[in-house]
């Protein structure tokens, strides 16, 4: 007698197996967030968010780091997005499929996997030292822009390639030129995909330590311009925890960092849905 699994049983097994995998993945995420919130939520006071940092972080708030993080990430995004989307348009619309395009795509994929500390080192040598920008928010923004550029290029390229060829043909057949077609048909259709790449980029930029420690520095003063040195939240968290300055403040900082990323993602997806509602 042979033992055989019927189609109904195999369906149930597959369902339970996949459900388990999903539960594990979601549970890990929830566990990390819950752990940090449990330890850090009590630190979240108005003072913590709005005061200067004192005694290397043992006392006071984290306002300088919040400002520093927002500025560095904002600079990185406004530099990397036009560059990345522009390159993606060029690659997908103006070059023919072939070995050179594959090589560029492969290069971008490799670049996306380069450890951030190497970008930090490059930023330190090139922006901080050779261009004499010094440790500042601008250097950090430029370095992070380079770091997230490959991600934005590749996701935008895929999003643009996913726009059906027939849309372009319709535009051409109505007398549209190449640029009309890209600006009025292809890009609006690809925006949700492009925005996904930008959101991924923001996430990496906001949480980055290695690349910013080398380029933005670790100053605890409130930045007065993009040429001030600053310390991002992630770096501040690293310093507080690593130097054993104050674990409660470290968890508080981590909580703010996580909330910041959640808020940015939430806003980005809201924008995306608003946009989709208008176009589809």
């Amino acid at each position, binding site marked *: 007698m042979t033992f055989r699994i019927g189609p109904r049983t195999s369906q149930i097994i597959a369902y339970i197996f996949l459900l388990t995998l999903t539960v594990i993945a979601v549970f890990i995420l929830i566990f990390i967030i819950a752990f940090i919130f449990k330890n850090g939520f009590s630190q979240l006071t108005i003072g913590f968010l709005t005061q200067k940092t004192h005694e290397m972080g043992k006392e006071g708030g984290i306002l300088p780091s919040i400002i520093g993080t927002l500025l560095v990430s904002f600079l990185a995004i406004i530099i990397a997005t036009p560059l990345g989307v522009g390159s993606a348009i060029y690659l997908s619309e103006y070059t*023919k499929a072939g070995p050179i395009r594959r090589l560029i795509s492969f290069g971008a994929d490799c670049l996306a996997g380069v450890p951030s500390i190497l970008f930090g080192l490059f930023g330190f040598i090139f922006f901080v030292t050779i261009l004499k920008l010094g440790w500042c928010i601008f250097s950090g923004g430029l370095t992070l822009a380079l770091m997230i550029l490959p991600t934005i290029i590749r996701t935008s390229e895929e999003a643009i390639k996913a726009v059906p060829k*027939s*849309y372009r043909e319709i535009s*051409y*057949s*109505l007398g549209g*030129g190449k640029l009309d077609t890209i600006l009025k048909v292809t890009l609006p259709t690809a925006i949700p995909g492009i925005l996904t790449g930008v959101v991924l980029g923001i996430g990496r930029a906001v949480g980055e330590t290695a690349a910013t420690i080398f380029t933005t520095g670790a100053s605890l003063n409130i930045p007065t311009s993009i040429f001030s040195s600053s310390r991002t939240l992630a770096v501040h968290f690293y310093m507080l925890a690593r130097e054993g300055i104050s674990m409660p403040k470290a968890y508080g900082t981590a909580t703010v960092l996580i909330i910041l990323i959640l808020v940015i993602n939430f806003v980005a997806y809201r924008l995306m849905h608003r946009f989709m509602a208008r176009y589809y």
Partner: protein
Amino acid sequence: MDIKLSIKNLNVFHKNIQALKNINLDVHADEILGVIGPANSGKSSLLRAINQLPETDDARYEGEILLDGKNIDTLPLNELRRRIGLIFAAPVVLPGSVYKNITYGPKLHNRHTRAELNELVHFVLNAANLWDEVKDRLFDSASNLSGGQQQRLCIARTLALQPEIIMMDEPCSGLDPISTAKVESTMLSLKDKYTFILVTNNTKQAARVSTRVAFFLSAELVEIDRAEKIFTNPGDKRTSDYISGRFG
């Protein structure tokens, strides 16, 4: 009969495959020219050659196409495509509202006031027999329309460019008989003002609407004549074999 479009010694190649062999064909003003023939006979390649919209990047053309006696190579592409509209087999609506779909083309070519655009939208939707069905949904997404409505929207979108010739590539192949009848009656009601080239796999449709019919087979034009002649007493045996359903 005025000759609107004249095709002389047209050859089309895709890589090493010849899609059209030495085609000579005149299209008269204000007629519906039906183009029939089995798959891969070169019907779509003909339309794409006229609109300079090749299927592949390595398509190559030889020969001349004259629009009102003027070689189309001398016309800017956007003007050529405005004057000769092309409607594809599968209705493809652009993302966005019905209104936006129609105004997309005109806005590319000229500046219009809002009032002019409103009037144009009303006019072309009426002409395409679609106004009554969509007049309350002008600003809804065009992709919510049914397939037949989408195809008539595509016709309206092409009409909005005020073309001289409208080419259709199997416009009813994905539609049900009622939608097909609506598209056909749209065509017939417009035929006094526009010249149509209708590529169709449906020989009965060609018989219903065409003034003249051209039969293509294996990249060649077998014969072209008045529709009654083609369907009752064709000059070539291959034509009678095809329309009587012996092959294809």
